[in-house]
């Protein structure tokens, strides 16, 4: 709670501070815990509804703790042209989860993403901050098994 307040106060004087605050919170906690809503609302003098509205509008902000790593699977057209639909079925079966879920061993959270800008070497997957290109089901298994 105190940490969330410190983060919010640090950015509060910037113009349009809410997104930078939410990013900093998510960097710190791995997600945006519900208790920060009232803290940010108080620091920025906004309603809790406004803060909640912003958090839920953006796909990138998550309200629950992720697994150890977040796996972003690209679902967009350039990847579709290179077999992303097949990869998608494989990934869900291999990890035993659907989108927005975390594997039972807590290693991976699976999220869909619409373009990683790696469209000349599709399909693409991002694990935390690192993008992998030309991901076949076999290459995917290697990435997950070693990681």
């Amino acid at each position, binding site marked *: 709670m105190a940490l969330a307040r410190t983060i919010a106060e640090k950015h509060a004087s910037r*113009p*349009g*501070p*809410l*997104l*930078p605050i*939410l*990013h900093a919170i998510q960097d710190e906690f791995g997600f945006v815990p519900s208790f920060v809503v009232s803290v940010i609302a108080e620091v920025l003098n906004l309603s809790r509804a*406004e803060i909640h*509205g*912003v958090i839920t*509008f*953006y*796909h*990138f*902000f998550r309200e629950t703790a992720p697994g150890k790593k977040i796996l*972003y699977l690209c679902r*967009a*057209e*350039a*990847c*579709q*042209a*290179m077999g992303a*639909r097949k990869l998608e079925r494989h990934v869900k079966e291999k990890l035993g989860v659907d989108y927005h879920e975390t594997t039972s061993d807590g290693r991976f959270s699976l999220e869909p*993403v*619409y*373009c*990683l*800008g*790696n*469209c*000349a*070497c*599709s399909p*693409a997957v*991002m694990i935390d*901050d*690192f*993008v*992998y*290109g*030309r991901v076949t089901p076999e290459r995917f298994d290697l990435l997950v098994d070693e990681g």
Partner: protein
Amino acid sequence: MTEGKVKIFVPRETTARSLGSEDVALAIERVALDRGESVTLVRNGSRGLFWLEPLVEVEIGGVRHAYGPISADEVSDLFNAGFLTGAKHAKSLGPTEDLPYLSDQSRLTFARAGITDPLSLDDYRVHGGYEGLENAIKLDCDEIVNIVTESGLRGRGGAAFPTGIKWRTVLTADGEQKYVTCNADEGDSGTFADRLIMESDPFVLIEGMTIAGIAVNATEGYIYLRAEYPLAIEIMNQAIQTAELAGLLGDDVMGSGKIFRLEVREAAGAYICGEETAMLESLEGKRGVIRYRPPLPAIKGLFGAPTIVNNVITLASVPIILARGSDCYKEYGSGRSRGTLTAQLAGNVKRGGLVEIGFGRTLREIVEGFGGGTATGRPIRAIQAGGPLGAYVHPSQFDAPLDYEAFSEIGAMIGHGGLVVFDDSVDMGEQARFAMEFCAIESCGKCTPCRIGSVRGVEVIDRILSGVDESANLALLRELCDTMVIGSLCALGGMAPFPVLSVMNYFPEDLRARKPQ
């Protein structure tokens, strides 16, 4: 650098890294150390010849020789073959600049991409960087805006609005505080030009924005950069810091007495924030819900102040225009589309990458000439041009020239220049369905045609594909598309039907009841 040391270049750029360039760089350092070879490893950006990544270059006598694609386990082999002296190897490609894919291009905006160390300001200046700003600070605002107007530069984000006219509006608008914002929320599938320039030549964007700021008396700039591009965020932030320390940003830009501060703002994964008014809302810390226009952002934009909103490539094209003059830029192109198009070859294509050429070449020349056809070797069935809201172009239309007006005559759009190639295994019915599904996921929810229409669109297409009242539902789908096109507030709902309509018009055989398996 010690004399006699050989310079080796290995890209530090997302696509090259996604194919193993970090491992290649490590292997080169390790093998060089083992062999007692004295080398300097430069982590350049990428030249955008992505099918050759990781592309390793060796500089010999001032000429760079290319080897690619190289994997980490081939590095010892390269040393054994004598690549430090430019010797032949199964993967040698000869002098990089002589590769036809590169030599057939007109690299203006991307002149330095892959050549320089993106984080070296010295490198940038040695290769012509900051000549544009040097000229700009000697001119008054009117003169700068005139040069940009005369160059014919139009918005490269997709809308193709004349940049100079937008700047003129901001310059003449009333307001103490004005802003320059850069839309780097490159969400269109099949596009990577913004990311490539930010990772490979970040100073060119900084310089372009600084010129924009000086041209319209704006003292603050924001780059709204997608969260999906962590490396671009890191590189842009470092470059901004370097420019600040060198007095090229801040309270006295290049000793001119002018103020321009620049900041990266991280986006948060909403496609709609690529729409300019939604981006402004997001920068203000709100939900990315679009605004009614008018007022235009140029009059009433960020925090209600006159604001330039330009795409990355638009702003990154400004320095060369100020450095070489508007005539030099205008020489390229065709019709009312002046300068260069940064086409991005993506999807199922043999030689994917960035192709910067004057407007006016045909789609076929680019996709077959540069791209070499599909990666799978099968015939091309369709090309989606201009992102997820762009039409699927049928092979009978491939001879259309790529200029804004000519391309819109065939019912397609150039947009941000993304070209996604599909082979004949594609199911165009699924592609039509995805266009509506994507719109439903990404709609900001403000207007009904987009918010509800896209959901209904998915349902109607599902009914068609499952054989329920096929002809009635096809008629309904066309009506729904019309409603969305005419009734939506912004381009998301207004254009999401275009790929659907292109499938109905050119690939009708795929949008009908499926035979039971």
